[in-house]
Each structure stands twice: as structure tokens, then as C-alpha cells.
């Protein structure tokens, strides 16, 4: 076998090996999407219950007061951005989309004269900022997929603490969350959401607004709001984390699908080249034999 053929054979083998890895990763991601999506759906009843409860408090008493509802929060000019990226690579454009959206948001906030403060989830986002010599204010990484609710609780605790803090160097005026919304396994959107201050629609402005019953509050409306608001933030953050996880798997699946396809193209290409190299070698051998035979017959010798 010629040297050229050997080179092509080796390239084919390496592409085949890679293809197997990509295929395996694709299938793992595909099986995890469904599980991750089920987790997202499992948080929905709680989120709905909370939203209904808060909505009913808002309709019940006109003058509820909570720092998260105050639209005029401008004490320090610090605006927190919670950015949710992946821990792992091979997720296609997933992390980069989030980082780009967060950077855009940070620039907008800077233009408005605010100071963006980064809170980062995931190794990809953390290393992005560390590499650029502006480490994030707080980073959570690495994280485990099955501990996301606990992580969400921890993050929500830190953020709520900073939002309500009286310390000027810690206090946050606003809180934004940049994550990826999981719509279907084919469609995911990178979204920037303003979490605080929250806008609760004024009663009567939306026609389809469900009629909330007049509730009896125990112990009283203000305590109930003070208790529910951090819970609401927490449940939203957990929900966003879980959606991000599902999106990460979907993105991984897509990236690995195209990587598998590319490996197949490579294999096909190198097989063609190896075949033509083999043919060329055979042709050359035949030419040499025929040439040798011609030379022999031309020499006038009759017996071999």
C-alpha cells in the first residue's frame, strides 16, 4: 500500500472515531432534553400559584409597599446582571449568545449612567470575564444539573440580600437576568429580563385579567407581600435556570448533529481520495508491467 493511501486511511479512521464521539454526545443530549424540559414543567404549578397569590395581593390593597415594586430605585446606580451560561463546551452558540446579550445590556446600562455588576453562572461566562481581566462580581461554577433548584435558591438568596442591602457598596438598584428561554427543542431564545423593579399591571388596565378573589390575609397584607416577593424572585430564577439547562442540551444536540454530519462528509471525501489514490497506484503498476512487456517484446527475444 502506498504512502498516500496510508495517510488517507488514517484520516478516515480518525474521522470515524470523532463521528462516534459526536454521535454519542448528540444522543446523550437528546435524551436529556426531555428530562430537563420535564423539570421546567414541574416548576410551573408553583410559579402559577405564586403569581396568582401576588396578583391577588396587588388587587386587594392598592398601596402595598415593597422595595421590589418601587419603580424609583436609584440609590447607588448599581444594576445587577445575572448571566446564565454553560459549564461545558460543545454546546454550539449557546454560551456566546448569552454573553453577547449580556454585554449589550451592560453597554445600554452604562449609557444610562448605571454601573453593571455581573453575577455569572457557568464556567464559560466566568472564564470569558476572567480572561478579559474584569472578573465577575460573583460566579457560581461548576454546577451540577440535578442540584439546579438548590443553586437557584442560593443565587436568589444572594441577589435578594444585595437588592435589600443598606450597604452602599453592595446595594443593587436593579436586577436583570440574561438566560435562554426554552420554547421547543428546536427553538430557544436568548432573553434579557428585568426582574427588579417588578411591574405589576395596575388593576383594570388589562381586559382579560382574571378576577382575583378578595382574600383574607394572615397575618396581614404587608407581611404576606414581604414573604412572597423573595419567593417569587427565587421561583423565577429557578425556572430560568432550568430552562437554560434544557436549552443547553438542545443546543448541544444541534451542534453535535452538525458535527456528526461534517464527520460523515469528511469520511466520504477521504474515501474518494483514498480510492483514487489506489486506482492511480494500480494504473501505474499496470503501466509499468505493460511497459516492461513491451520493452521485452521489442528486444526480439522469443522465449522468456
Amino acid at each position: 500500500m502506498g504512502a498516500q493511501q496510508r495517510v488517507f486511511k488514517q484520516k478516515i479512521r480518525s474521522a470515524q472515531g470523532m463521528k462516534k464521539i459526536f454521535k454519542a454526545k448528540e444522543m446523550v443530549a437528546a435524551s436529556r432534553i426531555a428530562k430537563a424540559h420535564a423539570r421546567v414543567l414541574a416548576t410551573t404549578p408553583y410559579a402559577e400559584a405564586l403569581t396568582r397569590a401576588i396578583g391577588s395581593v396587588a388587587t386587594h390593597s392598592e398601596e402595598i409597599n415593597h422595595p421590589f415594586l418601587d419603580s424609583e430605585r436609584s440609590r447607588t446606580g448599581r444594576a445587577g446582571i445575572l448571566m446564565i451560561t454553560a459549564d461545558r463546551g460543545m454546546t454550539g452558540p449557546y454560551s456566546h449568545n448569552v454573553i453577547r446579550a449580556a454585554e449589550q445590556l451592560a453597554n445600554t446600562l452604562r449609557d444610562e449612567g448605571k454601573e453593571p455588576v455581573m453575577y455569572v453562572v457557568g464556567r464559560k461566562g466566568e472564564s470569558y470575564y476572567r480572561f478579559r481581566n474584569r472578573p465577575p462580581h460573583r460566579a457560581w461554577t461548576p454546577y451540577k444539573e440535578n442540584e439546579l433548584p438548590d443553586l437557584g435558591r442560593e443565587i436568589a438568596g444572594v441577589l435578594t440580600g444585595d437588592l435589600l442591602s443598606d450597604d452602599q457598596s453592595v446595594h443593587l438598584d436593579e436586577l436583570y437576568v440574561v438566560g435562554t428561554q426554552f420554547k421547543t427543542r428546536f427553538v430557544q431564545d436568548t432573553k434579557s429580563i428585568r426582574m427588579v423593579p417588578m411591574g405589576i399591571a395596575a388593576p383594570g388596565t388589562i381586559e382579560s385579567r382574571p378576577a382575583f378573589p378578595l382574600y383574607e390575609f394572615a397575618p396581614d397584607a404587608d407581611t404576606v407581600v414581604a414573604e412572597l416577593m423573595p419567593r417569587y424572585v427565587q421561583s423565577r430564577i429557578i425556572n430560568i435556570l432550568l430552562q437554560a439547562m434544557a436549552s443547553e442540551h438542545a443546543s448541544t444536540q444541534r451542534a453535535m448533529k452538525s458535527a456528526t454530519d461534517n464527520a460523515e462528509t469528511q469520511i466520504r471525501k477521504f474515501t474518494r481520495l483514498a480510492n483514487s489514490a489506489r486506482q492511480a497506484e494500480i494504473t501505474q503498476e499496470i503501466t509499468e508491467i505493460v511497459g516492461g512487456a513491451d520493452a521485452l517484446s521489442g528486444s526480439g527475444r522469443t522465449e522468456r
Partner: protein
Amino acid sequence: MSALDVTFVTADRTVWSGQAAQVVVPAVDGSMGILPQMQPTLAILGTGTVRIIDQDGHVDQLAVDGGFVSVDSDVVTIGVDDATSIEAQDSRF
């Protein structure tokens, strides 16, 4: 007799849902019993045990730490951070 439609959810899953005759929750200002036809209530929970008693008298007990409960026309929604099931002891009811 009418029954309560109970949904018990934690932040990441639904723990209990179905029909019940009575629910006892640990509100911050004292234990609160919920029976059918109760007025709409929104209460904050403290630390304690949620008892869900179904129509056969079977008791499900869950330990909770903070949360909320909303009651509205016999629909009871309990939302907590985390709940751990306590093995059903001999019912006192």
C-alpha cells in the same frame, strides 16, 4: 359533603394533589385548619407539619419550613420551598 381540591407544590415538583376533607397547615401565627366552604385566605406558613386528611380519614403528613397557602372556593394551593414526607402515624382523627 364537598371536598377540598388540594395542590401541594414545592419549587421544583408537585408533592401532593387530589381531594381532601381537611387540611391543617402551620401558619406563622398559629396552626390553621382548612375545611370546605372556607373564606378565601392567603396565609404565610412557618415551620411545622402540613396534615392532609382525605375523605377516608387517611392522613398524609409533610414537614415544611416556610411557604404560603392560598384558599379560594375550595381550591387549596400550598407552595413551599421543600417538603419532606413524614411516615403516617396512627391517625388521631
